[in-house]
């Protein structure tokens, strides 16, 4: 692009559009004897709904909105049960500090694992329904009629028999005096009028006019800025610094050691801080990890492919016997590299510490985890801490389980009591201090009998456990990482979609020192490539159509089959393709949703053109189908970027890629046409939508690539095979 910005991005956006009305955030609850009131004095009807005299409804949301649309979806569910006018809905985000004060009245803040809606739909719907029941009761009391004769819709309560109406705002004060009902019946999703509809996002207008404040935008009067450098080799320590060398540099206020592995420079501007940090002589103690390379990690994992001991994830029959007695055996070894989340906005947080109060502002996927970090780092009790959530310039899992940058910000601010300090990571810091998509290899062996029936499948994963880095307390008592088996489990929300008479899926845990983390899609990114590419290899080896081969193994998995059939039909599987076009399929279950993909590609030399990419998803219930469409398309951008470009390599113990020049991401010209099929099948289970479809892109494209070229690629990214996206 030739355009060089001459003005500040924020002032540009704000200056080019009218700034809309304000939205009161946060809660200050001067508790009366009975009625709980929001900051502006409006009464609460249960914890999820506040109705204002002008009929405006404030719906509470504690899951983090980060562009994925969960806030709008959750509000739709509350509004549906409440029966309010959707145009009058606003959002309030209670802080983690308020949540703690009110005994976690709003439940879990954690926003990862595609759980925003699927794990809170029931209690937020009940919250909306409870508020409606209170409003109806208040109106019935005023009119002295049975509540059963009153109905609510569009923020209006009607008593048909007497032809009377009132509005939510008029009876809210009386309703707030009533007890919150405990017996609550929810609507049948078939009758939804607000939920289930492709409504526009509530957070878009503020973003379009530049009003939304991201963590990196935040400022406070008198605020200083900090730049930080942690030991490039994870697990390494800060040995020594020569602070005197930079303390006299322009703007520098202080050089601060942070924990035992990092150093920060605090200055008047971030650039001064960063310039001094770059000039600061630092010695690291990298220990043994300083000798680790990508090659040594690969060797470490390779050993696990044939190791005797491994944690079992899924076992049926006797796979060893099936393989030993096979008429035909097919084997393949795959691998998948480290990936960085690389959100557009690097990690940052602004902290202000005094012995009486520690407050932090920033983006997080988990307000409660960020709050816990503030407590731990400040050493202050919960009633003296607060975390204020700001908009995130991308999460993708990086801003979830680990709140490492929040801790750093507090530790730095603690060195300068009373002075607010904004810690902003450089892109280089963000690229090298991530919590990376784990690295794995996989050996697959398929066994056929003489009639070409698949009698056995052994899938041995060797590689890193995410929980081992982030939450070792969540490992099974024997050390097994249950998350490693996403998409491969015998049952549950990430169940394996095939029935094979003799099956063994096991994990030889091999943990390099590089920090692992939850990266959008998590372990299904590689598990889906391993299973779905190998399924095509198996089908090819016996000369059976890839779809027919799968169908035979999927008779007991009707929901997997339904999404697979849907994409196959839409892409025209089995029908003649245009000259030079080739198709590929994939499917899996992840985060409670059944997903399938189909790709249509052509290959010219080293260029792969993706003409069509179809994603089908059955999340059980579709709260906002338009938002699901966008999540499908967005997940493909992340998945395709990883497939073609994404790889973090290790040299001398450190991650080598420090910016987007070496860790690339696809651009608008490379974006394939995405068609999504949203096909909720109902039932009792609600699936997620933020992550699942990411898994189908890579195997569908790679299976199409094999059909186009006869070449099977088993290591990634494709740039290492000199393949480019056209």
């Amino acid at each position, binding site marked *: *692009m*030739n*355009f060089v*910005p001459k003005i500040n*991005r924020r002032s*540009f*956006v704000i200056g*080019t559009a009218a700034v809309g009305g304000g939205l009161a955030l946060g809660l200050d609850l001067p508790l009366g004897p009975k009625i709980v009131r929001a900051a502006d004095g409006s009464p609460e009807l249960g914890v999820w709904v506040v109705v204002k005299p002008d009929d405006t409804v404030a719906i509470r949301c504690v899951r983090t909105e980060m*562009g994925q649309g969960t806030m709008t979806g959750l509000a739709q569910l509350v509004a549906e049960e409440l029966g309010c006018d959707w145009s009058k809905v606003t959002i309030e985000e209670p802080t983690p500090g308020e949540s703690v004060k009110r005994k976690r009245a709003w439940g879990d803040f954690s926003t990862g694992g595609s759980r925003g809606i699927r794990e809170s739909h029931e209690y937020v719907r009940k919250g909306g329904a409870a508020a409606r029941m209170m409003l109806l009761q208040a109106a019935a009391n005023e009119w002295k009629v049975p509540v059963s004769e009153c109905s609510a819709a569009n923020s209006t309560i009607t008593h048909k028999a007497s032809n009377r109406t009132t509005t939510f705002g008029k009876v809210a004060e009386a309703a707030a005096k009533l007890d919150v009902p405990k017996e609550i019946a929810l609507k049948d999703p078939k009758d939804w009028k607000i939920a289930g509809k492709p409504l526009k996002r509530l957070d878009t207008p503020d973003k379009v006019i530049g009003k939304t404040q991201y963590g990196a935008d935040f400022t406070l009067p008198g605020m200083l800025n900090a730049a930080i450098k942690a030991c490039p080799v994870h697990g390494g320590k800060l040995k020594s610094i020569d602070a005197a060398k930079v303390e006299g540099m322009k703007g520098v206020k202080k050089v601060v050691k942070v924990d035992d592995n990092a150093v920060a420079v605090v200055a008047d501007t971030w650039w001064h801080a960063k310039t001094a940090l770059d000039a600061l002589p630092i010695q690291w103690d990298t220990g043994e990890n300083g000798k680790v390379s990508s090659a040594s990690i690969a060797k470490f994992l390779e050993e696990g492919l044939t190791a005797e001991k491994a944690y079992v994830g899924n076992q049926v029959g006797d796979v060893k016997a099936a393989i030993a007695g096979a008429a035909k055996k097919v084997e393949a070894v795959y691998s998948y590299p480290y990936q960085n989340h*690389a*959100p*557009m906005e690097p990690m940052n947080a602004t902290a202000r510490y005094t012995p009486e109060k520690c407050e932090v502002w920033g983006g997080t996927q988990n307000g409660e985890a960020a709050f816990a970090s503030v407590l731990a780092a400040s050493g202050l009790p919960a009633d003296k801490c607060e975390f204020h959530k700001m908009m995130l310039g*991308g999460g*993708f899992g990086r801003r979830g389980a680990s709140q490492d940058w929040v801790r750093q910000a507090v530790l730095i601010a603690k060195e300068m009591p009373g002075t607010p300090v904004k810690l902003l990571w450089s892109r280089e810091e963000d690229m090298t201090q991530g919590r990376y998509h784990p690295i794995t290899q996989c050996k697959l062996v398929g066994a056929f009998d003489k009639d070409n029936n698949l009698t056995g499948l052994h899938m041995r994963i060797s590689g890193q456990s995410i929980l081992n880095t982030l939450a070792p307390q969540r490992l099974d008592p024997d050390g097994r990482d249950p998350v490693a088996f996403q998409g491969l489990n015998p049952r549950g929300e990430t169940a394996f979609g095939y029935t094979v008479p003799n099956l063994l899926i096991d994990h030889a845990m091999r943990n390099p020192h590089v920090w692992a983390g939850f990266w959008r899609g998590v372990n299904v990114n590689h598990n889906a490539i391993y299973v779905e590419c190998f399924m095509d290899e198996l089908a090819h080896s016996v000369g059976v159509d890839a779809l027919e081969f799968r169908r035979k193994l999927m008779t007991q998995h009707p929901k997997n089959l339904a999404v697979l059939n849907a994409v196959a039909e839409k892409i025209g599987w089995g029908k003649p393709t245009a000259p030079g076009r080739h198709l590929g399929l994939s499917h899996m279950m992840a985060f409670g949703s059944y997903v399938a993909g189909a790709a249509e590609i052509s290959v010219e030399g080293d260029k792969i053109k993706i003409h069509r990419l179809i994603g089908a998803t059955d999340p059980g219930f579709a709260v906002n189908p338009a938002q699901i469409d*966008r999540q499908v*398309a*967005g*997940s*493909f*951008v*992340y998945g395709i*970027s990883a497939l073609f470009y994404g790889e973090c390599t290790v040299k001398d113990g450190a991650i080598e890629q420090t910016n*987007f020049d070496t860790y690339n*991401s696809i*651009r*608008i*010209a490379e*974006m394939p046409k*995405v068609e999504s099929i949203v096909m909720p099948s109902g039932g009792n289970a609600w699936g997620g939508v933020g992550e699942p479809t990411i898994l189908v892109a890579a195997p569908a494209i790679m299976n199409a690539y094999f059909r186009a070229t006869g070449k099977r690629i088993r290591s990634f990214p494709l740039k290492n095979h000199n393949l480019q996206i056209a």
Partner: protein
Amino acid sequence: MIMAVAELLKNKPKPTDADIDRELTNICRCGTFQQVRAAIHAAANA
């Protein structure tokens, strides 16, 4: 991205898809490209 689009529309009030592909090289990790493309055409035709 928004600023790049503003510049594109200033120089080329009715950009084609090929214009968009050529001129917009901004990274978007959330993957809003389809929506961005649709929005550019909508703005151009407004």
